[in-house]
């Protein structure tokens, strides 16, 4: 185990993958030569180490970058391409959703697209709605794409390695504001299987399901709640597609209460799916309504107090958990 930042953990995964498999290459805008000179960024130093054949800076052309990944993966390569910020995923949408996700299926299983798309998510860096807009629910609603959204350095490394070597197309979401967060990671090619959630903090009163940066909002709230003897079980999904339904349902059946939390907007967000699954498959265990905590249904504003308002705060989780505990059917 070594202690590195989330960004460095991702970097190690990229480095290992490049090192282990000649079929892996990276491409994206400024992933080689970057305006940022920060060793905590995932692609830092890789151009120097692997050269411009394997680490490719591209023009500002999201559709072509995604097309590059689709076409190259159809030929057996393992592209790892970057879409800089989640809102720009719209520009890569046709290539990913209509091609990477569908063409294998339509071919009757005759081709394959073992590609990975890395994309940055997150609010609270003051750039506003055209840079900050978590669209994981779009990807999750596109059959044929896997979807990973890790919250820690160790998960980041292990899941990115799994994503890169998964034979299916994977969208890998990086929580930008975590790049500098430190954590222990194992050395070497240690993979974490896609599709396995993790109980980050066991609890008995109420289940909280979340992922990505919101995990820390949840843990903070769990700490506060513990002071007043409410025991919150925090589940980090890690992979959104395929979803570890068993982990969620086991927990809800145990606690009888469910809060879903994410930084994306509420309406038709990923939380709706989790809530729906609980209402369908754990209905008889539920002792109280399901609660979703999410961003309000607005674009991300730039002004700091408003951007802070946008992002769900731990206090909202605390209030929700208390309300659920107080609920009498």
């Amino acid at each position, binding site marked *: 185990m070594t202690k590195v930042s989330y960004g460095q953990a991702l970097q190690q995964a990229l480095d290992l993958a490049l090192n282990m498999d000649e079929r892996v290459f990276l491409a994206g805008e400024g992933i080689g030569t970057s305006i940022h000179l920060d060793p905590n960024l995932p692609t830092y130093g890789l151009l120097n180490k692997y050269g411009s054949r394997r680490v490719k800076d591209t023009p500002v052309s999201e559709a072509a970058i995604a*097309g590059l990944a*689709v076409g190259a993966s*159809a030929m057996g390569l393992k592209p790892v391409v970057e879409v800089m910020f989640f809102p720009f995923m719209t520009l890569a949408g046709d290539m990913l959703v209509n091609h990477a996700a569908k*063409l294998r*299926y*339509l*071919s009757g299983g005759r081709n394959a697209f073992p590609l990975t798309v890395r994309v940055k998510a997150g609010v609270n860096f003051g750039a506003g709605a055209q840079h900050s807009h978590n669209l994981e629910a779009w990807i999750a609603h596109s059959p044929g794409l896997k979807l990973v959204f890790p919250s820690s350095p160790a998960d980041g490394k292990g899941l990115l390695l799994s994503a890169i070597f998964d034979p*299916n197309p994977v969208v890998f979401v990086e929580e930008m504001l975590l790049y500098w967060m430190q954590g222990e990671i194992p050395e070497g090619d240690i993979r974490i299987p896609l599709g396995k959630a993790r109980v980050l903090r066991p609890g008995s009163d109420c289940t909280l399901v979340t992922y990505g940066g919101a995990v820390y909002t949840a843990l903070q709230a769990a700490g506060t709640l513990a002071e007043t003897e409410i025991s919150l079980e925090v589940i980090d999904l890690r992979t959104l597609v395929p979803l570890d339904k068993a982990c969620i349902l086991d927990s809800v059946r145990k606690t009888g209460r469910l809060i879903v939390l994410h930084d994306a907007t509420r309406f038709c967000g990923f939380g709706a799916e989790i809530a729906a699954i609980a209402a369908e498959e754990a209905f008889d265990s539920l002792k109280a309504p399901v609660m979703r905590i999410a961003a309000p249904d607005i674009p991300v504003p730039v002004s700091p107090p408003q951007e802070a308002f946008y992002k769900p705060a731990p206090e909202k989780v605390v209030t929700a958990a208390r309300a659920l505990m107080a609920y009498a059917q």
Partner: protein
Amino acid sequence: MPDDGLNPELRRELYTKMVLIRKFEEKLIDLAREQARVIGMQILSVGQEAVAAGVVKALEPDDVIVSNHRSHGHLLAKGADPKQLMAEIMGKAGGVNKGKAGTLHLCVPEINAIMTSTVVGASPPLGVGAAFAQQYRRLPHITAVFFGDGAAAEGSVHEAMNLAALWKLPVLFVCENNAWAGAQCLKDHSCVEQIVKRAAGYDMPGEAVDGNDAEAVYRLSVKMVGHCRSGKGPALIEAVTYRMRGHGEHDHGHYMDKTVLAQWTERCPVRRLRERLAGEGILTAARCDSIDAETVALVESAVAFGDASPFPEPEAALEDLWIQ
């Protein structure tokens, strides 16, 4: 290596391929009328056979093609099995894609036709990705990408050309300018009359060719394929041709000028080649007739194969999405 001299054998092969495409699609015209024998839209390349035959003849078997919604000709020219193709177009389990693709997304890996997309403008970025893999793996192969004059208006085509030229990828862009994008004629959807004008904007060679002359298409293709294969980057061919039917068989072309259509019918690429080869004594009329008859029989056997194949099980719809 393809012979870049047009020897008699090659010219006969060109003719044979074009007849195959024509007869195959004429059969689809029939089948489309008989409800439920073929599935979905039938988007045919009748009148454009010289482009598919001429370009593909200039490729090696290991070269890759990426096709669009009007794909039958490209795939047959590359060597797709007419039986499996026909069964697929019928939505049958014996189809090349188990019935999941139908006519619009045919994928035939064994002939290196690895992707077909019916999203207009998608083939160029897909093909650029394939060509990247060829360059990356230092293969001597190239990728040929087919797209239409209508597709040339899509942003994806621009991005693909810039990237291909920037990285000197071995991709041959083949714009089949058949004068129509659906019901819009060229002057209603493109600000330039010649798509090939755009090649200069990417510092890549571009040439237009009579797309109804298979031999001319072949000759230009050999040159451009040579350019791509030599590592000098992409090239653009604009094959000027004409869509002899409606956009698809559901379209009766009410907006098409019958005089213009008649003029292009005069220039039918299959007939032209036949007459030329007959004139030069390379194929006798009798030999042509027997090629035609053999092809018709081949197409009938493809239909019989398709008819004999069952539909896939409904539940098999759940298969083929994920690789475990």
